[in-house]
Each structure stands twice: as C-alpha cells, then as structure tokens.
C-alpha cells in the first residue's frame, strides 16, 4: 500500500495531509466528525534537525488550539547521519520531538504511531516509540540495527546472526520481533478496513501508562525488564 492508499483507507471522510520532502504534516477527519492531527515521516526519509523541528512545531501549534488524538505515521530511515546534524545538536531536536509527543499524550491528546514502512534507531525513538500505542502494518520492516552493521561489530557472519535470530527476538530486525518485545502493541490487518481498526482503537484506547515491559513479558520477548524495573522501584520507594 502506498502512503496515499493508507491515508485514504484510514480517513474515508477526508484528510489534509501534505508530504513535503518526506515530512508529513496535516490533519484528518474521523467518523465522529472530530479532527485528528497527523504528522510523520514518509518515503524512508532520514530524520534530521530540519525535519524534526517542523514535526514538533506542528504538534505544539495544535496544543491549546485543537483537541483530539494524534497520529504519527512512520516510514523513515534512521536519524540523519551527518556532521551538520550532530554539530547543530541532533540529540536535542530528536528528544524535543519525543518530549512534545509524550507531553501531548499525557495532557489529553492521545498519540498513536503507525509504522507502515521502515524505521531505525534514533528516528524510531523520536516518533513511533514516543507514542502511547504503536501499531504496525503488515509489511513494515523496522530495524533497530541492521544485520550487516551488527555482523561488523560482533564479528559474526550474517549466517551465524540469522541462525541466532531464530531462537530470540532480542536483536534481529523485523516487526514481529519488536511486537514480541512489547514495542509494537498490535498489528493491523489489510483484510479489514483500516478506518474500522483505527476507530476501534480510538474507542478503546489504553490508559496513558507505559505497559510495554509487561507486554514484552506476556509475549515472551522480554522476560526480565518488568521484574527488574519493579524491584528497583519498590526498593527506591522505601527511601521515603
């Protein structure tokens, strides 16, 4: 499915989402007639300082002016790897975008990420992983780290890595691995209208509480994280 197909399928009542050099900005109409703010990264564009500042601006302008949920569409490259972006403080720009999304989510503007293509590393942290619910579309191919880079660092062959990846979701790329870890909450189906699946999620949004570690445990992908975090929290609470 192309981005246009996805947008049309998500919002049969219409949308005004523009794609400017891979930066998606706009809004769409939900069945209720309410509006949904839409932003994102398309065409496997790298997320650099110039893209991030426009995305955060779009959300900040909407806060206080509009109401309703926020959709973050993701088909990105990694963060833009360049001297210029790092010189200008890319970590601050990516963090700022994530902070704005988290703030919106905590303050009455529930956020949904829709991973419909690629994404990686810092770009995923600043977009999809900064939303309350991250949804995957079949065919999405996120890769926190790609296997060739991993082969280089670990000095293992691609074959050896692929063999190891069969027994654990913990390092290898792919939507199902991220789902098993608890990062991707659900995967939608192309068999049903996307609009129905979006409306069903909006009608039954989970509370704004980060339960990804518990989800990862329930799915068998991250067995220790939730227990370790809870033990540390309990010990720390005794400091009161």
């Amino acid at each position, binding site marked *: 499915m192309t981005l246009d197909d996805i947008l049309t399928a998500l919002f049969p009542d219409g949308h005004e989402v523009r794609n400017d050099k891979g930066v998606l900005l706009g809004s769409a109409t939900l069945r209720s007639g309410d509006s949904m703010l839409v932003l994102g990264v398309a065409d496997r564009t790298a997320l650099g300082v110039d893209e991030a500042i426009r995305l955060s601006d779009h959300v900040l302008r909407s806060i206080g002016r509009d109401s309703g949920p926020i959709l973050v569409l993701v088909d990105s490259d990694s963060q833009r790897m360049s001297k210029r972006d790092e010189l200008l403080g890319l970590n601050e720009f990516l963090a700022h975008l994530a*902070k704005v999304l988290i703030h919106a989510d905590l303050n009455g503007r529930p956020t949904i990420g829709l991973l419909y293509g690629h994404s990686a590393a810092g770009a995923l942290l600043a977009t999809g992983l900064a939303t309350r619910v991250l949804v995957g579309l079949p065919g999405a191919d996120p890769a926190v780290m790609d296997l060739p880079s991993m082969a280089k660092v670990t000095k293992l062959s691609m074959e050896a890595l692929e063999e190891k990846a069969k027994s654990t979701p913990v390092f290898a790329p792919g939507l199902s691995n991220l789902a098993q870890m608890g*990062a991707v909450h659900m995967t939608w189906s192309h068999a049903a209208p996307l609009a129905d699946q979006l409306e069903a999620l909006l009608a039954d949004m989970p509370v704004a509480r*980060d339960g990804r570690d518990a989800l990862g445990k329930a799915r068998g992908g991250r067995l220790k994280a939730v227990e*370790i*975090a809870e033990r540390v929290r309990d010990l*720390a609470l005794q400091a009161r």
Partner: protein
Amino acid sequence: MSAPLKDITPAERARSTSFYEASARTRLELLLDAGSFVEFIGPEQREVSPHLKIFDLPEQFDDGIVVGRGRLDGSPVFVAAQEGRFMGGAFGEVHGAKLTGLIRAARQIGSIPVLILFDTGGVRLQEANAGELAIAEIMRAVMEARSAGVKVIGLIGGRSGCYGGGGLIAGCCSALAVSEPGRIAVSGPEVIETNRGVEEFDSRDRALVWRTMGGKHRRLLGAADVFADDNVQDFREAALELLELVGPFGLDALKAEQERLADRLRRLSACSDAVDIWTAEGIAHAETVPELPADQFIALADRTGRTSRDAR
C-alpha cells in the same frame, strides 16, 4: 586505604579524581555525601543480562549500571551511573530496566531528584531491540517524572560519552553538566564515517570529534548549562548548582525549547564546522577554544554561551 591518604578529605579526593578515568562506582562514592550511597539490586544479586550468552560474551553482575539512593549536601537523591568500561556502557534489557524503575519511583515520590551519570555508546547491539525499547521507556519515564515535578539531572564526562539513545535521554533531562571529554551526539563518529564516508566525517580526526560533539561545543550551544572540569568534585558542585537552577516543567518549557532550537537553526544552519559556529556566536579567536583551560573556558561560556534554562 594507604596511610598517606587518610588525612585527605572526601572533597579533596573527589577534586583529585578524574571523572573520565574513574569507574561508575568510584564516581558515585565521591559524588555523594561520604558513606551515603545505598545500591538497589547490587552485583551480589547477579542480575546479569540474559542475552549476552547467546553471543558467548562475558556478563557483568550489575549489567554495567549502578543505581541507588544517597545524599547530596544532606538532601536525598536517586542516582544511576553507567559503567562505560563494560560493553561501552550500552543499554540492554536489565541495564535499562534498572534506570526505568528508579525514575518511576522518583515520579511516584515527586520530590527526590534523579542524577544520571551517563557513560554510554547507546543501544547494546547484541540485544538491540530490548535496548532500544528500554531507552524509549526511560525517555517516557523521565518526562512523566518531570511532569510530576521531579528534577532529572544528567552528568556527562565518561569515556564512552553519551551517544545514540543516551543522547536522546540526555535531551529529555531537566539540565545537563558536561566536561570537555564528555561527548554528546546521536550518531557516533565511526557510525557516520561507515554510513557516509570519510569525506563526511573522519572518525580518526580526534580534534574534529571533540569540537563537533565534545563538552565545550555543547556548553556553548546551550545544550548543557554547566561546564565541569574533569574531576568528581566539580561534577558534584555542578549537580548542586543545577538542582538550584532547574525550574518547573510544562508546556511553556517545550514552547521555549521549540523557539530555542528553531532560532539555532536560523542562526547557525549554514555553518560547516564548530569553529564557524563559535565565530558566529561572537567568540573572537574561536579556533583557540579547544585549547582553553577549564577556568578560562567557563568564563568565556558564562559571557557568550547560550543556555537552555527553562527551555528544555
């Protein structure tokens, strides 16, 4: 402890100990009030990474991070210190979950600040998905804690710097202190060179690395509000200063950050090197900045450096 050391006060010992060279445990011991540190899930509990054995890699009993509570000038603080000498301080499942749990507790209590001593290359490749997700959870936890009134201070001066997702967590903190060797970036020099070629970034050019990602540049840009000399006592004093300085977090801070970063792009977008940026910021003889000793640099930064106060 050997005899000649016994008359040295903790402050003197902290002053003479390089933050860069020290281990995570030594940093905490000397940063906090003497004897006040209590660790949560210490190495004796052997909570190691469940994933490293897949790669036949050695585990460490604390998974490369020390978390706990202590006192700073008598006041309670939560602390986390990454050990850059184990797997480059990288985030794995257990490593990250310890920090997440600590920050969630701070959020629940609301009044005890968190100090994070970053020393990390980012996501631990061997457990990349777990590490990436841990970073996302920590970012969320930091923002929830700050929204509840908690101050989260980052201290950056370790040998692994603060790279990858560590740089994003640092960007979520209420304030940062950084020393000259404390580099902050998303993509590391080798990563840029591997992906874009040596013409884009020569990772062996150490001077280029320091001036592009190092503490002096981050302080002048306003990414970090305090520049610390490379010793633990200076970081202790920086932490105390930042705890005083940090104001409340809310929408206004995010709007101010938007303006601060957009303004940076408007002013500096065309600069191709840190020296160009420092010159554009009005620093005379900007090419000498890397050689300036700490005291002279701090005086310069206080005069001409930007700040992110109430705008992050």
